[in-house]
C-alpha cells in the first residue's frame, strides 16, 4: 500500500474548517466507541484479539514481536498446522479505499494564446483531491510444521500490478534454542521500528525517510533499510524476547529481482537490542544497527535493441562501499504513551555520491523499467556510468549525513490511537565541494489517528486520518547559498480493512 503521490496545505479558511471537522468527527468516534485488529489469519488460528499482538494494527507490541521472532508461533503445542481445522486457510486480504488531497510543486508548461507549443515552464503548486485506492495485499503466513514457518506477500499497486513484496521461509528454534533461527528469501530487515508495519499510509509519511534517505544525485539505492531485501538472516532472542540479535547477508540489489542490479555484491545488516523491565512504565528497549556493504557502480549495457542502453543483468562491476549505522529506542511511559526513536549516520562512497550505481530506470509513474530511452530526463532515468576508466570529478568525496526519526503514539484504548512523527535528515558532507550544504535535507511531519470500531479475532477494520507535510531542500538557492525547502503535503482519510 502507500504510494499516493504528494500534496499541499489548504488555504487558511479551508484548513480551519477541515481541522474543526476532523476534531468534531474524532469526538463522535470516541463517543460511539463500543468495543482493534491483526492478520486475522493468525488471530483466527490462535483465537486472540488483534490487540494481543498489535499496539495498533499493524504495529507490533512486545508480545507480537515475540510471536514474530518465534516464527509466528506462540510456542505451545498448537503451533503446528495439524492442530488446525482442515478448512483453515492462512490468508488475509488487505486493501484501503481512501479520500486524499495532494499538493506539490510541479513544473508546468506555459502557452501563448493561439500557440499549441509550450513557450516555457513555471514552477507552480498543484493541488488535487479525490477518492482513491491503495493496492491489495495477500498476506499468507504461518507454520508449515512446528518450527518451520513461512511468509508470502503478493502485493499489488493501485492498478492491480502485482509483485512479491515478501517471500521467505524460516527454520525456527534449531536444536530447541530460541537463539538459533534462520530465514531465507525476501524479507523485511530486523528494524525495531518497522516500516512494513507502519501506522502511516500517506505517500511521504508512509515510509521512514531515515530508512530511505539518499543524497541528491546519489546513485546508491542499495542502502535502503526500509525496503524488503533478498538474503539469508540469522536471528536469535531470549525466551522472553527481551534480548534480540540478528545478522543478515544480503544481495546488494535492494530487493529487485533478476539480478539486474547489484549482482556479485553483498551487504550485511546487523542488529542488537535489549529490553529492560521498568515496572509500571513498561518494557523500555534500546538497540543499535549497522548496514554495511558494497554495490556495483558500473554496468555493461546493450543498445542493439534500439531502446537505449539496457543494463545487462548480472554485469555489475566496480563495487564500492556504503554504510548506515545508528541506534533504536523504544520508550514506554505507561500503557498509553510510547516514543520510538531511530538515528542514523550514513555514508556512501564518492562514486555513489556522483551518481554511479542505480541501474533501475523508472517509467515516470513510479514503476520500474529495465530501460531508459532518454537519459536526459534526469532523475527518472538510471545513472548509467558504463564508461570504463571514468574518473571522478576533482574533489569528489563521500557524501555523509545524519538522520533522526521520532514517532510518538498515544494509545487512548486498544481501539483508538493518536500518532505523530517528526523526521529530520541532514547532510553533513556533500559529494561535490561547493554544493549548498543543506541540499537534500528533509523535514517530514505527520499526525494522525486510527480507530477500530470493533475488536475481534476475525477481521480488522479501521477508520484513519492523516496529514503529512514533507519538506525537502531542493529548491532554488537563497542569498545564503542554501537550497530552499519545498513543501509537499497530503491529507488522507480512509478505511483500512483486512479479513
Amino acid at each position, binding site marked *: 500500500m*502507500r504510494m499516493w503521490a504528494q500534496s499541499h496545505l489548504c488555504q487558511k479558511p479551508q484548513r480551519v474548517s477541515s481541522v474543526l471537522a476532523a476534531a468534531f468527527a474524532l469526538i463522535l468516534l470516541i463517543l460511539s466507541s463500543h468495543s482493534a485488529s491483526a492478520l486475522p489469519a493468525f488471530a483466527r488460528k490462535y483465537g*486472540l484479539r488483534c490487540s494481543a499482538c498489535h499496539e495498533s494494527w499493524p504495529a507490533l507490541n512486545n508480545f507480537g514481536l515475540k510471536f514474530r521472532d518465534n516464527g509466528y508461533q506462540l510456542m*505451545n503445542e*498448537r503451533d503446528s498446522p495439524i492442530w488446525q481445522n482442515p478448512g483453515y486457510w492462512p490468508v488475509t486480504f488487505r486493501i484501503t479505499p481512501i479520500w486524499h488531497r495532494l499538493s506539490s510543486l510541479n513544473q508546468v508548461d506555459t502557452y501563448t494564446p493561439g500557440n499549441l507549443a509550450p513557450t516555457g515552464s513555471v514552477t507552480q503548486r498543484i493541488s488535487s483531491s479525490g477518492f482513491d485506492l491503495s493496492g491489495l495485499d495477500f498476506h499468507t503466513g504461518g507454520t508449515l510444521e512446528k518450527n518451520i514457518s513461512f511468509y508470502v506477500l503478493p502485493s499489488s499497486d493501485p492498478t492491480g500490478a502485482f509483485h512479491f513484496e515478501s517471500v521467505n521461509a524460516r527454520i525456527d528454534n534449531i536444536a530447541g534454542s530460541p537463539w538459533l533461527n534462520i530465514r531465507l528469501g525476501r524479507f523485511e530487515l530486523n528494524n525495531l521500528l518497522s516500516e512494513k508495519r507502519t501506522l502511516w499510509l500517506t505517500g511521504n509519511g508512509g515510509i521512514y525517510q531515515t530508512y530511505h534517505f539518499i543524497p541528491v544525485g546519489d546513485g546508491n539505492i542499495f542502502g535502503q533499510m526500509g525496503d524488503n531485501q533478498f538474503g539469508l538472516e540469522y536471528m536469535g532472542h531470549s525466551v522472553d524476547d527481551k534480548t534480540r540479535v540478528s545478522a543478515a547477508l544480503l544481495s546488494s540489489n535492494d530487493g529487485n529481482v533478476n539480478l539486474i542490479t547489484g549482482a556479485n555484491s553483498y551487504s550485511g545488516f546487523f542488529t542488537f537490542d535489549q529490553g529492560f523491565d521498568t*515496572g509500571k512504565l513498561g518494557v523500555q528497549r534500546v538497540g543499535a544497527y549497522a548496514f554495511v556493504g558494497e554495490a556495483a557502480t558500473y554496468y555493461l549495457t546493450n543498445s542493439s535493441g534500439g531502446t537505449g542502453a539496457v543494463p545487462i543483468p548480472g554485469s555489475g562491476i566496480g563495487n564500492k562501499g556504503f554504510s548506515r549505522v545508528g541506534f533504536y529506542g523504544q520508550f514506554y511511559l505507561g500503557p498509553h504513551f510510547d516514543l520510538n526513536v531511530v538515528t542514523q549516520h550514513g555514508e556512501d562512497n564518492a562514486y555513489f555520491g556522483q551518481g554511479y550505481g542505480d541501474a533501475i530506470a523508472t517509467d515516470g509513474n513510479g514503476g520500474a523499467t529495465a530501460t531508459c530511452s532518454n537519459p536526459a530526463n534526469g532523475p527518472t532515468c538510471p545513472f548509467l556510468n558504463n564508461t570504463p576508466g571514468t574518473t571522478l570529478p576533482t574533489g569528489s568525496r563521500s557524501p555523509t549525513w545524519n538522520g533522526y526519526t521520532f514517532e510518538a503514539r498515544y494509545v487512548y484504548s*486498544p481501539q483508538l490511537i493518536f500518532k505523530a512523527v517528526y523526521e529530520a535528515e541532514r547532510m553533513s558532507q556533500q559529494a561535490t565541494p561547493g554544493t549548498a550544504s543543506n541540499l537534500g535535507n528533509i523535514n517530514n511531519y505527520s499526525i494522525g489517528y486510527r480507530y477500530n470500531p470493533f475488536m475481534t479475532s476475525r477481521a480488522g477494520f479501521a477508520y484513519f486520518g492523516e496529514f503529512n507535510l514533507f519538506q525537502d531542500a531542493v529548491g532554488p538557492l537563497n542569498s545564503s547559498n542554501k537550497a530552499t525547502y519545498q513543501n509537499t503535503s497530503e491529507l488522507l482519510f480512509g478505511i483500512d480493512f483486512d479479513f
Partner: protein
Amino acid sequence: MGMNPLATRFASADFGLRVLTMNSLKPMRFISAILFTAIPCTAILVLTFAAGFTARASAQDEPLVGPKPPVVVKPMVSHIGNITGHAADGKYDYRRYCAGCHGDYGDSNGENAVWLDPKPRDFTIATFKCRSTLTGTLPTDEDLFNTIGRGVTNSNMPIWNTFTKQERADLVAYIKIFSPRWEKEKAGTPITIPAEPPVTIESISHGQALFAKLECWKCHGTHGEGDGPSASTLTDSKDNPIRPYNFALGGNDSRFKCGSTNQDIYKIFMTGVDGTPMPSFADVIQPNDAWDLVHFLRTLQVHRHSKENEVLMAAHGVIPPYVDKNPPPAADTNKAPGGGQ
C-alpha cells in the same frame, strides 16, 4: 504495500497533471473551496455514524439486549515479593490481552471462547487449576502470577512473559475483582515440598505401583497416553469435555499444565487440578511416596531426556515389580490392576 519509495522522493517532477494550470482553475476556486471542506467533512460524518450503527447492530446480535453495565473495578491488590499490583492498573492490559477469551466480566464468555478447547477460566467462580495451595482453597498471588508468565499447555493460554513483573502483578489484582471469594477468603497456605530424594530404579518401581494403586491409569492410561477407560467420559466442573494429560506426547520441551519441573509435578497431584476430575492426593500419599510417583511419571515421557529415563535405561528399560519392604500389618487384598505395566 511498500513499493519503491524512491518514486515519492522525486515524485514532484511529474504529477501527471501537466495539462492543467492554476489559471484554468481560478474560476472554480470558490466551488473547490467548498468541496475541499465539504467532502472530507461529509465522509468523516458518514463513517462516524456508520461506526455507531455497526456497533449497535453487533449489540443486537448479542443475547442480552441493552447497554452492558460497566465493570466495577474494586480496589483489589496483589503481592508478589516486594511488588504490589493494583487492579485499577491492570484494567487496560486485561482488556487488551485477556478479555477476548476470559470476557470483559471475567466470566469466560469472551468472543473467542466459543472456539476454544479447553474453555478459558471463569474468574467469577475463582476456581483455579494451578495452585500451590490445597484443593478447594484460593491460590496465592504468586500462583496466578506464575500461571500468567508460564501459560497453560494444551490450551490457548499463551506464555505472557513479555510483560513487566509489575504489569503481571496488576493483572493478578485485576482478576480478583470478578469473584467475591477474594473479599471473603484468604488464599490457602502453600504446601510444603520436601527435598527430592535421589532417583533410583526402586523409586521408579514404587511410583509405578502407586500409579496402579491410586488408579491413575483409569484416566491417563497404563502408558500415560491419556487413553484410560474413563478418559472419554471426563468433563470439567462446567460440564465441558476434558481430556487427561498425555505424558507420552512432546519431547524435551514438554510441559505440564502447571509447570515443567519435578516440583511442579509433585504440586499438581498433591493439590489437584481444581475444576477438573483430577483430585488432590495430599491425604493419601506420604511425601516420599509422592516423589516416587514423580519419578515414575517422568519415565512415561518417553521422548524426553531426563535422569529418570537414564536410570530406567541403565536397568535395560525394565521396571522391576515393587516389593514392599515394610508391608502393613493387616493383609492387603486390594491389589491394583495394571500393576507392573
